[in-house]
């Protein structure tokens, strides 16, 4: 044993001097530490802010769409030369011609095939289908003239949204000087209007940016999340309750626990491969269906739900269990009457955060064929469909300038959903949280 040095304990005055001299460096260290923290927070807020500003700056224009007013002459010679008003004939008539004629009347001095084609392409091809539907719905239109608003072609739309730089050399832009002249002339005649882009929120994908929308993808995502929550939440909660409250504590249960934690860390694309092998190849479920996507995402989300539910159950004070058991409640009664209601907010929070992650998941969906060009709005979870993040991925890959803003707009919509879900999680927690 070492020699005890009684002088090691200093006098009060000496101690005070030593403490005082160390104070300066201690406070300096504290300030430095705070500065690191503030820097970290500022950096992350700056990144998030930059991200939001960019996305919103890029995407907000997609919520509006340029419309062009055309005077359409429903010429019976073009629509129904035979005069029979047969639906067959009406639906296969050359409506393109009506648009062409209308535009030619507006710009009579345009000649040459190439120029005419360019002129015609200023109005969306969707106009043709719109006209056909109008005639099919009301044949009495034939022979009359109507002023109608049609969505502008994406290039014209981009021009009016200021996304065409006219200072660039004409050959290196898609919107040439003639088109600029025509566009300005249309504007002067009051034939141009910007409207809220309902197409974007009501239609599926399209090759024409002005006709494309996110509704098909959103509905696909909705069906998927529905399947996911219906499967992942009850199964995850049941597994968590069993593991926490009923399972014996032995090696097998430990092994299961480790595996659940590992499963939560498995890359999502692996779940996609699993879904392909099991649900599509083995169970022969349809490809590209939200049902399969939902099943895959449920597998992916379940470990998260189990882990969140277990910690929610663990957070219920044991005194509550003892009180119920001591009163003669059976174990199942104890769990369903007391533990579960108290753990539910935590479980729901975990499930919603898991779902939010599933909503943003793309990789596993690529594996099961949900990366498809889907025009029709899916009506059931078995219809081919895509999902919001997949739609973003597809649009981001498209060359048209107009898809850039739509990509950002779709991201805004996806983010809005995610924020909504996270807000719901926070609300649920504060709403049902109990103190004891």
């Amino acid at each position, binding site marked *: 044993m070492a020699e005890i040095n009684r002088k090691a304990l200093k006098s009060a005055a000496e101690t005070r001097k030593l403490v005082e001299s160390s104070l300066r460096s201690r406070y300096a260290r504290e300030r430095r530490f705070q500065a690191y923290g503030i820097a970290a927070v500022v950096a992350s807020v700056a990144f998030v802010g930059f991200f939001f500003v960019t996305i919103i700056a890029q995407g907000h224009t997609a919520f509006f769409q340029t419309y062009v007013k055309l005077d359409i002459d429903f010429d019976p010679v073009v629509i129904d030369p035979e005069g029979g008003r047969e639906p067959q004939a009406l639906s296969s008539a050359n409506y393109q011609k009506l648009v062409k004629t209308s535009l030619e009347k507006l710009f009579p001095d345009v000649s040459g095939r190439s120029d005419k084609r360019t002129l015609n392409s200023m109005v969306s091809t969707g106009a043709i289908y719109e006209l056909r539907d109008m005639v099919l719905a009301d044949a009495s239109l034939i022979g009359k003239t109507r002023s109608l608003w049609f969505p502008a072609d994406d290039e014209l739309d981009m021009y009016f949204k200021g996304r065409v730089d006219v200072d660039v050399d004409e050959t290196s832009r898609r919107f040439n000087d003639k088109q600029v002249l025509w566009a300005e002339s249309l504007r002067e005649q009051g034939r141009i209007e910007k409207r809220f882009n309902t197409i974007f929120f009501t239609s599926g994908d399209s090759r024409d940016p002005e006709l494309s929308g996110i509704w098909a993808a959103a509905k696909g995502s909705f069906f998927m999340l529905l399947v996911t929550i219906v499967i992942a939440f009850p199964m995850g909660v049941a597994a968590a309750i069993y593991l926490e409250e009923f399972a014996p504590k032995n090696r097998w249960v430990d092994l299961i626990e480790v595996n659940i934690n590992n499963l939560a860390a498995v890359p999502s694309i692996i779940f996609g491969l699993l879904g392909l092998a099991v649900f599509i190849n083995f169970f022969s479920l349809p490809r590209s269906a939200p049902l399969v996507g939902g099943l895959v995402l449920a597998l992916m989300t379940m470990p998260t739900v189990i882990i969140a539910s277990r910690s929610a159950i663990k957070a219920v004070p044991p005194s509550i269990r003892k*009180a119920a058991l*001591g*009163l003669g409640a059976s174990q199942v009664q104890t769990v369903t009457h007391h533990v579960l209601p108290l753990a539910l907010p935590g479980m729901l929070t975990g499930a919603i955060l898991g779902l939010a992650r599933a909503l943003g998941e793309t990789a596993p969906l690529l594996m099961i064929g949900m990366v498809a060009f889907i025009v029709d709005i899916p009506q059931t979870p078995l219809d081919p469909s895509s999902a919001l993040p997949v739609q973003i991925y597809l649009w981001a890959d498209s060359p048209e300038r107009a898809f850039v803003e739509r990509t950002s707009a779709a991201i805004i919509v996806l983010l809005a959903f995610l924020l909504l879900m996270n807000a719901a999680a926070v609300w649920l927690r504060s709403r049902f949280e109990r103190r004891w």
Partner: protein
Amino acid sequence: MSADGSELGELRRTVGQPTVADPIFTVRDCNVHYGDTHAIKDVSLDIGRGEVISLIGPSGCGKSTFLRCLNRMNDTIDIARVTGDIRLDGEDIYARKVDPVLLRARVGMVFQKPNPFPKSIYENVAYGPRIHGLARSRAELDDIVYSSLDRAGLYGEVKDRMEEPGTALSGGQQQRLCIARTISVNPEVILMDEPCSALDPIATAKIEDLMEELRENFSIAIVTHSMQQAARVSQRTAYFHLGYLVEVGETNKVFTKPLHRLTEDYVTGRIG
């Protein structure tokens, strides 16, 4: 204290009066193991009908463990193993055919920390009768709830706030709510595990008065760290030490003329 071998040897034989003429609980040669720890060693003790018996002893002496044997709460601890012969009214409570759920309805328990359910005051007391199906109608349930609260001396304080959460009451009120909850299922025995250790002296006094009244209808076993409390509320006292039941006898005898040296050391404040 030097626990020399001869003294430990002495511990094996309980001195005093472990048996009574009219027991509700008879415990013979009870042993409890938690894994490798031998927590209760060869304890034999009777609990008389309509008596309050206090279990005292230093921390870790096994008195709470012993209490938990009586309503099989040790079953909920995975590593606990209970052996011996424990009979409630002559019936072996560890027999295969005995359902712990029924047993716990007959043997109620009040815990150290007040643990009301995070529900309304009414629901706290109504829960037990409800799960056991003791009330056929809402009116009958109301009667059970109100009379339980009344017997626990809480009715006057809470009669206008039945729908308020039980957790909003003061500590002493919460503990009396827990007692009301326990007596609502009309148990034969009430086990109390240091019921006043988290309460102030006034709340403690109320609960001690309450125990005196409850003795008319229930047998009570109470674990306590307060020797004054044991002296005030109980007719018999059992002193536990290192898992052994050292001495048991009439309370005033145990406190004034203890037979065993360890008991004397404890009640005079030399150890513990």
